[in-house]
């Protein structure tokens, strides 16, 4: 087999072999494209499968549909991040299957539309969309910030032999864009060349033409997959033409031969924006972004030591990782101090040299924005119109959440410009939420305050006391205590229900008999 890339990092192996059925039931082009392939991510062979009590380390099938799909889907595969709907599932695959469970079989017009949107997305991002009857692995691929996310699982295929499954345990990995794109480029060049040398069939010529056209695609053609709103893209172009010097670099995407390797900070920012973002918010955010490039830019020495580009772990849940990162940071900063009742998050952020700025946005779903980079003043923007930010406890949570992004979600050139809202990459948001919870409610503080109770915190008043002491929200505290194992699920539900009942009674919406 011809190997493109390094199986220890990312690789695609391809081979063309003779069709064992000599073209029966297939077009000539399909038959001549018979071969095998395997996809590797960090030494995991995603095509290794077991069937009929045997294992096989490659998929054998017609390769023409796969190659054609790579060419047709090149733009979305390597540039499209957002899912058809804002969601809270982890990987693209998880989000897809979660959506399927909800929308399919539902004839409500809105559900039908969502189902259609998801199907179109699946056609662009799922390897199985191209299988044409082959037994292909359940693999999804999409862009996430400066990475390509590859997620996989083991959905059953009707008609597969009894007990057939792919041996790679369901998972997700993140690769720098170039690691994946360059492998696919090489593979496409080689495969299209092999096929056209073999025969002058129109299908093979069309494939070769498609591969060549990838060189001629404009950056704008790819950019529309990441920032779908044409008005937003126009605004970005207007700003790029207006600004000069260092500020101009905020609008320049880094292009490789056939793809956008790194998005500019201004581009990154709007990748996670709502599709309906208004122009007032666009202008406000761009103004705030360009302001961060003025004055003394770059990380403080302390922040520089701590900040890193940390893709989501392949082996751990995002919330688990978030907890651990918060614990490490607190230990590094020597917090909480023995006399602390709460973590002073503003002081932590100031100590790290990060600016905090309120930015009023019409979009109330945007909680905050994290901005950082070698040429930018690290900044947290807080939208006071988000419901969570109206209370000081919620604002503190937002600050801690955005701090996680600034510390761990850096990209090319240590740059970051991420809107925290429903359209942000879900795994990254989950990690940041867990980080914020543990940063504000570390075990030392929880233990310190729980010691004042007569027993475990199983009453709403107990949670209120703890929340007030740690300056966190009631429900965030309740959830965190359950995650720490201080209360069990049943207690949590009972407390939540009791608190809701108390709230309804006190508001007069419910009266006792």
């Amino acid at each position, binding site marked *: 087999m011809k190997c493109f890339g390094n199986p220890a990092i990312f690789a695609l192996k391809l081979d063309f072999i003779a069709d064992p059925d000599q073209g029966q*039931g297939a077009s000539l082009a399909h038959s001549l494209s018979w071969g095998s392939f395997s996809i590797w991510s960090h030494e995991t062979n995603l095509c290794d499968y077991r069937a009929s009590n045997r294992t096989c380390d490659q998929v054998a099938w017609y390769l023409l549909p796969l190659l054609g799909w790579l060419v047709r889907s090149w733009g979305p595969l390597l540039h499209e991040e957002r899912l058809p709907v804002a969601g809270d599932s982890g990987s693209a695959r998880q989000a897809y299957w979660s959506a399927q469970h909800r929308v399919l079989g539902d004839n409500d017009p809105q559900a039908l539309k969502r189902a259609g949107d998801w199907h179109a997305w699946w056609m662009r991002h799922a390897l199985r969309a191209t299988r044409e009857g082959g037994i292909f692995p359940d693999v999804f691929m999409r862009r996430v910030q400066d990475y390509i996310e590859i997620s996989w699982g083991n959905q*059953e295929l009707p008609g597969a032999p009894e007990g057939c499954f792919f041996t790679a345990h369901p998972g997700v990995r993140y690769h720098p864009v170039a690691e994946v794109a360059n492998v696919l480029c090489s593979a496409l060049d080689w495969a299209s060349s092999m096929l056209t040398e073999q025969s002058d069939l129109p299908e093979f010529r069309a494939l070769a033409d498609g591969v060549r056209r990838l060189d001629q695609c404009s950056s704008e053609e790819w950019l529309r997959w990441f920032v779908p709103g044409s008005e937003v893209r126009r605004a970005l172009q207007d700003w790029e033409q207006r600004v000069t010097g260092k500020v101009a670099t905020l609008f320049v995407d880094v292009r490789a031969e056939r793809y956008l390797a790194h998005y500019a900070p201004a581009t990154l920012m709007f990748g996670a924006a709502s599709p309906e973002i208004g122009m007032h918010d666009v202008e406000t955010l761009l103004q705030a972004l360009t302001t961060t490039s003025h004055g003394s830019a770059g990380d403080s020495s302390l922040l520089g030591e701590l900040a890193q580009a940390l893709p989501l772990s392949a082996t751990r849940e995002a919330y688990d990782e978030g907890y651990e990162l918060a614990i490490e940071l607190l230990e590094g900063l020597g917090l909480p101090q023995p006399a602390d009742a709460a973590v002073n998050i503003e002081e932590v952020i100031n100590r790290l040299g990060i600016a905090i700025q309120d930015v009023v946005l019409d979009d109330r779903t945007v909680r905050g924005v994290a901005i950082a980079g070698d040429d930018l003043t690290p900044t947290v923007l807080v939208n006071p119109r988000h419901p969570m930010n109206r209370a000081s406890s919620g604002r503190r949570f937002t600050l801690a959440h955005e701090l996680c992004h600034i510390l761990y979600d850096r990209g090319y050139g240590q740059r970051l410009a991420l809107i925290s809202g429903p359209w942000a990459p879900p795994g990254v948001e989950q990690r940041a939420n867990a980080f914020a919870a543990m940063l504000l409610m570390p075990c030392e503080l929880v233990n310190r305050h729980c010691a004042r109770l007569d027993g475990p915190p199983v009453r709403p008043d107990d949670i209120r006391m703890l929340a007030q002491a740690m300056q966190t929200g009631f429900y965030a505290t309740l959830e965190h205590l359950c995650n720490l194992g201080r209360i069990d699920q049943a207690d949590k539900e009972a407390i939540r229900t009791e608190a809701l009942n108390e709230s309804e009674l006190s508001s007069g919406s419910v009266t006792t008999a």
Partner: protein
Amino acid sequence: MIDSAICYEPNPKHKEPWHHGRSGTLCPRWSWEQAQQILDQSVVEGQQRYGVAEGMAFKGHEHMLGRWHGHPVAWNEVPPAIVNRWLQERRVTRREVKRLRFPEDLELVLRPLR
């Protein structure tokens, strides 16, 4: 509506027995005799056709002018508008559609053979 211009011609890769390195997903035995009928009653979508029988979805490909082969597909592989149409025509039930859509992340209860 029956289209007499389309003819079912099987691809051996979708017929039993299953062979490593050679076969794809297999059409169940009961569908062999119904294949032409499934094809005749199928719905066109782009360059493919989608058919349904006994709660199972099939996808057809034209490998030569007027000659089609097919294979079973999972319900998520069928365009939702077609699924909805079949549900309304009662050619499939919601239970059948949802059963085959649920992802089955199979646990590795046995180690691979090597």
